[in-house]
């Protein structure tokens, strides 16, 4: 019975599709669904009123959060199909499979995909920072220094969880611990048989962080927003440090988190539409700086996290509308770190950080990039 229904629907659909269905080109865009991509959510939420910020580009909503007409004034440029893709390598993988053509997602995963040969380009920044160190409420520390003191005093190692081996938060914490003279490793005893002071546990997924913290599987976590804000609001943990402030001092400021990525194919065949999206995302980022409260409201409405959570999360994230000096510096630092860890094995192998930066990026679509290079970021 069900098979008959499906076959009938398919037949009807095929009949209908032959009778003058829309020829508007489509462009598929993916995001991860959390507030790091707030600039996009802002752009999609503003409707026609936004075109004053974007030289005429705006989004006409057809189905909230899913389908929009990408407009240039009154002209439909493309049908925009928005979908939530997985975090981490989920977004560049979706780009590589052509399930989406433009995506917002992690810099680390994107660059790793490019190194493996994926034909992608970072076409605009999205945000920096937004990674925190959080501990359980009873842990005797309220600052990084107190954390180090507590680690040194304890007889058994402190367990800190992270979400993935390539997560920026994890990489920064390792460097910070090393710079502070703290031994760390995946087990309580290192390969040489010596006990470590901090055990770094791979919790596999961001959603495992809160249960692990509550269940005392770990004493603390390093994680991006808004998970940290959610945990704080739930009373499961307490933020003791913003990773941008960890030692070596100043090195982690403006560490890149998310970016806007496009397939080279989309850049070639749908350049105008991609450019319009970039314009809108840049304007969205600028909007966040100018209208913080409204932005928090939009974040809550899109992510479904409470206003309380977003009010804690959004201010800790540096929304970077344009690839300014801070963004470039953060990217180069990050490339340097990745190189030291021998993470690049293919396309980017042997390149200097500057060469990598040029290879993975194409900011030509960002409005007024030269002018923008002088604009400083800041929360």
């Amino acid at each position: 019975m069900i098979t008959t229904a499906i076959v009938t629907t398919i037949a009807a659909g095929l009949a209908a599709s032959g009778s003058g269905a829309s020829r508007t080109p489509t462009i598929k865009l993916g995001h991860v669904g959390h507030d790091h991509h707030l600039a996009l959510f802002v752009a999609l939420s503003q409707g026609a009123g936004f075109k004053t910020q974007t030289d005429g580009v705006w989004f006409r909503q057809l189905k909230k959060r899913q389908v929009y007409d990408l407009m240039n004034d009154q002209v439909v440029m493309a049908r925009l199909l928005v979908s939530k893709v997985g975090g981490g390598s989920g977004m560049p993988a979706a780009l590589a499979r052509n399930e989406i053509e433009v995506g917002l997602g992690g810099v680390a995963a994107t660059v790793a995909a490019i190194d493996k040969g994926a034909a992608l380009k970072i076409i605009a920044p999205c945000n920096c920072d937004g990674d925190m160190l959080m501990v359980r409420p009873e842990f005797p520390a309220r600052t990084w220094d107190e954390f180090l003191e507590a680690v040194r005093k304890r007889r058994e190692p402190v367990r800190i969880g992270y979400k993935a081996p390539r997560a920026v938060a994890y990489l920064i914490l390792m460097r910070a611990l090393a710079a502070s003279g703290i031994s760390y490793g995946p087990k309580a005893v290192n390969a040489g048989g010596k006990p470590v002071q901090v055990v770094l546990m791979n919790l596999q997924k961001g959603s495992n962080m809160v249960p692990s913290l509550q269940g005392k599987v770990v004493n603390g976590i390093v994680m991006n927003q808004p998970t940290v804000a959610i945990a704080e609001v739930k009373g499961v943990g307490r933020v003791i440090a913003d990773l941008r402030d960890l030692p070596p001092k100043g090195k982690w400021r403006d560490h890149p988190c998310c970016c806007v990525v496009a397939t080279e194919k989309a850049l070639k065949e749908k350049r105008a539409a991609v450019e319009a999206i970039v314009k809108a995302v840049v304007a969205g980022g600028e909007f966040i700086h100018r209208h913080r409260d409204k932005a928090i409201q939009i974040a809550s409405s899109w992510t479904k996290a409470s206003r309380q959570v977003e009010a804690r999360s959004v201010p800790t994230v540096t929304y970077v509308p344009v690839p300014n000096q801070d963004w470039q510096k953060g990217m180069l630092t990050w490339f340097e770190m990745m190189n030291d860890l021998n993470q690049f094995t293919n396309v980017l192998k042997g390149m200097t950080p500057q060469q990598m930066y040029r290879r993975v990026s194409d900011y030509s679509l960002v409005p007024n990039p030269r002018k923008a290079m002088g604009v400083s970021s800041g929360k």
Partner: protein
Amino acid sequence: MKTRLRIALVGMVLPVALLVAWHVAASRPGEVVFPRLASVWHVVAHPTEKPETIDAPSLAFSAKTSLLRIAIGYVLAAGLAIPLGLLMGRLRIAHEVMAPLTTMLRVVCPIAWLPAAIVVIGAASLAEHIWGPGQAWQHETLEEVQPAMVLIIAWGAFFPILLASSSGARSVRNALLETAWLTGMGRTGRFFCVTLPYALPSIVNGMRIGLGISWMVIVAAELYPGTRSGLGYTIWVSHDTVQYEYTFAAIAYIMLIGLILDGGLWSLERRVSHWQAVQR
């Protein structure tokens, strides 16, 4: 009447004990993972309400979507597994060809195929395949059905049904087939009038097991990229945002629907196998 009451009361002991243990766990200060029963109940009792704190449609819509995915996957699995199983049970060459492969494949968890399914089949929905990506959004129900997810669900149900069908066909009493042969009945007739009815209890039993596995697989299958609804999806998305009342409400619906569907098949199994237990 007294016996029935006693059985009912005894059967309620464990569930009630679990609920009490839950209540105690949820009442602990700082408890996040075990929400209060009242908040879970509120979600369960309002299935058509769109959640405000997770990015998912109403439980009713999600249940409908999950059911549709399972229905398509399950029908596909049964439609392939039953004839193939019967063939393997009656034709030795078919068994010799298929058995090694099916033995190797059936022990692989359906979810292990998720990455391969993503690459090979992609994430486009049925609506996208039919009407194109630009128009698919207008067909809400079929837009939620992704062929790859359906195939993973089908995989889960396929092997129990295949094995049960094969076993049922193989166990047909030769004497019954000979009786049909002696009356002049041809091969096709013997298949439909003897083999199939004899194997039917085994087939239906396999279908029950397959359905249970489909329901288990749905939770993991709805991790599939591009999923926007479903009871499994609701579990994951509420897990991500620490809204566990939705997690457990979705689990409750999975259990309830699973119970109803299994009950239906159990009833069918009883009907078709009434002769088996007392066969002299």
